[in-house]
C-alpha cells in the first residue's frame, strides 16, 4: 500500500474530514486547491527542495548507534531530523506551508505550538520570507519551554499565551483557530502536525514525506533494504507519518509511540475536535480530556486521523511509554551516543529500550525528530 490522497472529503477510511466553523470552510477549500496545484507544479518543488537543501540542511543523515545497539541487543539507527535547522523535523512542513502561503498572497502566519519547536520553525520561516507571525502557546508550556519562547521572540514572532483549559497544546490550537476565524482573509494558519481539517493532515504528511523518502534510500544503501521496524513518537503524528510514508509499502513493522498520559490511539475512542475525526481521549459526554505528559510536544489528547486509520487497518501499531521510561531513555542516548534527544523522540527510544527482549537481534529505525536543547533546563530539575 501507499499512503493515499484522501480525496475531496479528506477521509482516511472513517477518519479525517473538515469539521470547522462555516467561516473557515472556504479558506480550507482554497488551501486544498492551492496545495493540489503547488504539489503538481515542478516550480514549487524546486523552490521547496532548494530551501530544504540550502537552508534547512537536508538531507539529514542516518546514524548507526553502535554503543547503544550493543547495550540494547537491538541494532538501532537514527534518522537525524534533530540536525535540521531549528532543531527538529518541524521545519520541513513549515517551509512548505510558508511557500504556499506566499503563493496565496497571505502575509501573516498564525501557529500553535506545544514544545515550541513548531513555533520556532514558523517564526523562522516568517523571518525568512518577511511575514508576520503570531504563535499561540499554552501557559504551562511557556513556563517549561522558556528557551523556545525567547527564540521565537528573537526571530520576530509574537508569542501569545493560551490561558484556558489545560493551558497546553490543545488550548493553543483552540486559540490559533479562533484567531484564524477572525483573520482568515489575510492569514494562513500554519498548523504544526498531521491533524486539523482537510487538507492539513494530508498536506503536512506530504511535506514530511521527505523524511521517509530519504530514510528509505539510506536504508537501502546501508542495510540493503528496509529495517525490521520503523518507529517514531506520536503527538499529532507528523514526524511518524513522515517516516512511515517511506516504508508503508515494505514489510517493516510501523510502530508509533505515545505518552502514557496522552495515548489517543491506545486509549481513545473516535471523536471530533480541531477539525477532524480521529481517536480522542474524552469523557462519557464527549468532553475532551486533558492529556498529561512530561513532553510538551506530545501532551495532546488527540492524534492525526491517518494514524487512527493505520491503527484500524492494522498497518501500524501504537505503544505507550511512561514519563519515567522517557527520562531514562533521554539519559541513555546522551550517555551512549553523544546525542541529547528531545523528550518527544526519547519516547520512541524508551519503547525500544523497554521492549528490547522482544526486539532482540532486530534492526530498528527511530525517527530522531528533534534535539534536546529545549528540554535541558527541565531535565536539570528532574535529574538534578
Amino acid at each position, binding site marked *: 500500500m501507499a499512503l493515499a490522497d484522501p480525496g475531496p472529503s479528506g477521509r482516511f477510511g472513517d477518519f479525517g474530514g473538515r469539521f470547522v*466553523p462555516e467561516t473557515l470552510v*472556504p479558506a480550507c477549500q482554497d488551501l486544498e486547491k492551492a496545495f*493540489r*496545484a503547488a*504539489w503538481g507544479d515542478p516550480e514549487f518543488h524546486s523552490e521547496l527542495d532548494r530551501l530544504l537543501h540550502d537552508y534547512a540542511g537536508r538531507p539529514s543523515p542516518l546514524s548507526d548507534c553502535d554503543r547503544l545497539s550493543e547495550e540494547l541487543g537491538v541494532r538501532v539507527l537514527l534518522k537525524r531530523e534533530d540536525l535540521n535547522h531549528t532543531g527538529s523535523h518541524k521545519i520541513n512542513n513549515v517551509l512548505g506551508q510558508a511557500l504556499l502561503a506566499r503563493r496565496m498572497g497571505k502575509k501573516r502566519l498564525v501557529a500553535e505550538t506545544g514544545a515550541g519547536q513548531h513555533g520556532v520553525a514558523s517564526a523562522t520561516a516568517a523571518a525568512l520570507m518577511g511575514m508576520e507571525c503570531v504563535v499561540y502557546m499554552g501557559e504551562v508550556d511557556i513556563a517549561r519551554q522558556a528557551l523556545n519562547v525567547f527564540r521565537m521572540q528573537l526571530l520576530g514572532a509574537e508569542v501569545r499565551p493560551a490561558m484556558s483549559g489545560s493551558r497546553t497544546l490543545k488550548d493553543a490550537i483552540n486559540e490559533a483557530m479562533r484567531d484564524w476565524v*477572525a483573520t482568515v*482573509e489575510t492569514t494562513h494558519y500554519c498548523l504544526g502536525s498531521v491533524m486539523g481539517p482537510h487538507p492539513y493532515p494530508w498536506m503536512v504528511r506530504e511535506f514530511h514525506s521527505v523524511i521517509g523518502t530519504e530514510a528509505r534510500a539510506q536504508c537501502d544503501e546501508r542495510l540493503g533494504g528496509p529495517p525490521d521496524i520503523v518507529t517514531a513518537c506520536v503527538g499529532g503524528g507528523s514526524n511518524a507519518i513522515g517516516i512511515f510514508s517511506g516504508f508503508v509499502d515494505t514489510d517493516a513493522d510501523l510502530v508509533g509511540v505515545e505518552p502514557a498520559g496522552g495515548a489517543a490511539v491506545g486509549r481513545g475512542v473516535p471523536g*471530533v475536535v*480541531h477539525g477532524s475525526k480521529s481517536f480522542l481521549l474524552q469523557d462519557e459526554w464527549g468532553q475532551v480530556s486533558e492529556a498529561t505528559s512530561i513532553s510538551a510536544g506530545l501532551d495532546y489528547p488527540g492524534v492525526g486521523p491517518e494514524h487512527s486509520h493505520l491503527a484500524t487497518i492494522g498497518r501500524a501499531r501504537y505503544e505507550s511509554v511512561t514519563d519515567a521510561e522517557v527520562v531514562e531513555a533521554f539519559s541513555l542516548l546522551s550517555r551512549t551516543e553523544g546525542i541529547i534527544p528531545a523528550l518527544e523522540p526519547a519516547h520512541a527510544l524508551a519503547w525500544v529500550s523497554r521492549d528490547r527482549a522482544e526486539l532482540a537481534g532486530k534492526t530498528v529505525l527511530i525517527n530522531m525528530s528533534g534535539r534536546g536543547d529545549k528540554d535541558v533546563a527541565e531535565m536539570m530539575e528532574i535529574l538534578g
Partner: protein
Amino acid sequence: MSRATAPLSVAWDSADIPVRPAAHGALEQALRAGRDHGRKLLVPYVTGGLAVDGGDWLDNVRAVVDAGADAVEIGIPFSDPVMDGPVIQEASEVALAAGASPATILDDLRRADVGVPLAVMTYYNVAYHMGHERFAASLADSGVSAAILPDLPFEEVGPWATAADAAGVETVLLAAPTAPDERLPMVCARSRGFVYAVGLLGVTGERDALASSALDIARRLVAVTDTPVLVGVGISDAAQAVEVCSVADGVVVGSALVRRLLAGEGPAGAAAFIGSIRSALDASVD
C-alpha cells in the same frame, strides 16, 4: 520518490446530504409566524447549567421568555468551544465545573415548559459521542426543537441531519461572510428553523459597533432564501439589534447576555437587558 500529481480539483459529492424535509418544525413555524406578523425576531443565548449564585439556571430562560424572546438558544457547554470568545468560554467552564452535562441540561429542560421553541447550541463531538440517533431522540424527548452545531459545516452534516430529520429535530446551519455567492443558496436550502448569519469575522463576543459584514451577509441571505435570517455573533445591544434588523429578520444575542449572567445579574438582569432589546425592536417596526 513518488510525488504523484493529484487531480486539480474534485467536486464534493453531496449525495449523502439528505434533502431538507418539506414540513417546517416548531422553531421555524414560530419564527415564520412572528415574521408574518411584522415582528423582528429575538433569540437570546443562555448557557445551560450556568447558575452563578446557586439559583436555578432555568429561571434565566424563563426570564428572557417573559421579556419577549421568540425562541431561546440553550448552550450545552463543551470543553473546546472554538467558535466562542472569552465570555462564553468562561460560562462553559463555570457550568461544566458545576456538573452540567448534556444529560443534566436536557433533563432540566424536559421538566420545564418555557413556552417558546428551544434550540440547543453545542459542538459536534457532543452529538457524535452520544450517537446521532440517541442525541436527536434525547433532544426531541426534552422538547428541544432544533440544534445548532457550529463546527459541523454543510459538507459534513449528512449523517447528523439524517438522524435529526428522522427525530423531527431542525438543524440550523450557519452562513458566514467568507462564503462565496454560490455557497449561500446551498447552505440555506439545507438549514431548518432559521439561517444563522454569522455577523462578523470572528468568534462570539461583544463589539462596540455593528460590523458592516453583519448587514452585508444579511442582505446576501435574504436575497436567496425565504427561511428566516437571524444574525448572531457580535450583536451587543439594542441599537445594534435594531440596525441589523433593518435587513435581517432577527438577531441572536449571546455574549452580551451571558456576561451579565456571569456578573451575577441573574434573571432580573437578563430580563431587563432582553426587554430593552425587545422594546427597541418593536419600536423600530411601528
